């Protein structure tokens, strides 16, 4: 084995890694925002809101991410009438897919705070929105933080799927160098190691937050 091949191509590989981080970052931010609305929809007392939210979540959660990516690559040009850059198309697919997962985390976070907390807050004279903002949400956030961090790790792992449609994220860059240099052993081991270090840090953080 000769790991100097990594060193020779480090710039190209790191460019790919940056792309992976970008995709994960925007996916997490955008899907989390959408997820909050869907989560509130899931606990709504109105059926006309609750049912569509539930269908959205269950539809996406029962399909593999890679199939969702294929769907969007077919549908986005069909609907918009033009071809978007692949990063944008992948991002849309990721945001829609992970919004469903984040929504379930946010929902269970909200539901983990008992209704007696709301009653107690109301009994001290706070308004409903005050008790939500000051009492329920801070507790919900703390309860769901470990699960959120774990899901962020899963998003980062999921960015490898962009390889399939040829986006130049880290795994794809790795495979390109592997083919060009005919050094697959070194390159894939290196990629595995990089993913391992990053995701291990993430899961440790989740564990730490859980124990706190």
């Amino acid at each position, binding site marked *: 084995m000769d790991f100097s091949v990594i060193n020779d191509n480090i710039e190209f590989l790191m460019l790919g890694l940056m792309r992976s981080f970008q995709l994960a970052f925007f996916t997490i931010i955008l899907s989390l925002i959408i997820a909050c609305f869907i989560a509130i929809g899931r606990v709504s007392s109105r059926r006309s809101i609750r049912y569509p939210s539930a269908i959205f979540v269950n539809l996406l959660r029962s399909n*593999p991410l890679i199939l969702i990516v294929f769907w969007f690559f077919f549908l986005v040009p069909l609907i918009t009438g033009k071809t978007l850059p692949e990063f944008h198309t992948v991002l849309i697919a990721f945001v829609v897919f992970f919004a469903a997962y984040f929504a379930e985390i946010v929902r269970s976070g909200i539901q983990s705070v008992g209704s007696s907390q709301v009653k107690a807050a109301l009994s001290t004279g706070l308004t409903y929105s005050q008790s939500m903002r000051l009492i329920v949400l801070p507790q919900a956030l703390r309860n769901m933080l470990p699960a959120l961090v774990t899901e962020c790790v899963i998003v980062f792992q999921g960015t490898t799927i962009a390889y399939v449609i040829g986006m130049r994220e880290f795994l794809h860059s790795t495979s390109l160098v592997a083919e060009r240099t005919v050094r*697959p052993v070194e390159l894939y081991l290196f*990629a595995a190691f990089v993913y391992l270090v990053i995701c291990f840090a993430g899961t440790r953080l989740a564990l730490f937050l859980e124990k706190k």
Partner: protein
Amino acid sequence: MNYEFDWPLLLEEPNWGWVIEGVANTIQLSLMAWGFALVLGVLIGAIRMSKSRLLRFIGTTYVEIFRNIPLLVQLFLWFFVFPLLLPDDLMRAWNRLDGVPFFTALIGLSLFTAARIAEQIRSGISSIPKGQFLAAYSTGLTEVQTFRHVIIPYAFRVMIPAIASEFLTIFKNSALTLTIGVAEVTGAAKTIEAYTFRGIEAYSAASLTYMLTTASVVIFMGWLEHALRIPGLIGKR
């Protein structure tokens, strides 16, 4: 948007054959990998709770490595790297083997999922009150008997939903094996789309497969949980 649907297209050959082969491969691969992962996962889960520090370390290392490397990278490692690390004659034998992609996918999916199941076994067992162990030991049951008669039967019921959802995870994850050439259902849909440009029909067939399976597993598990429920336990503790 202007798109003309052509649903009967799915029933024409070779499309129909691809769909059927894809569904069959997806189900076969997921079921087999789930079985292996369950056995290995229980084993590693047990190792992680053993008294030996070395065994615990091995178990923890396994779990951390296999759950933190993305599945797709693991599949590539098994497909591209693993054969190259074999001695020459073994590598030749491996390459001559029929269905290398399927075997590779089976190994990759099983080992990845075993790490997740091991975690669930551990958290399932640590959710059991410590007093249950003390009570069993106080009546003279040995450690093995305690696990066999008290802890595992109870933990198993607690873990049914998690183990079922692992099956659904493996089922969806099996789609990734199209990258190493397994003709599973998402890959079949992609192939049909590539040949006919009928993406909606093709991907609907794949989505339907996943959704129907998910729905049947959820319904079956609901029934199983009901059948194995412990009287009086619901809504308590």
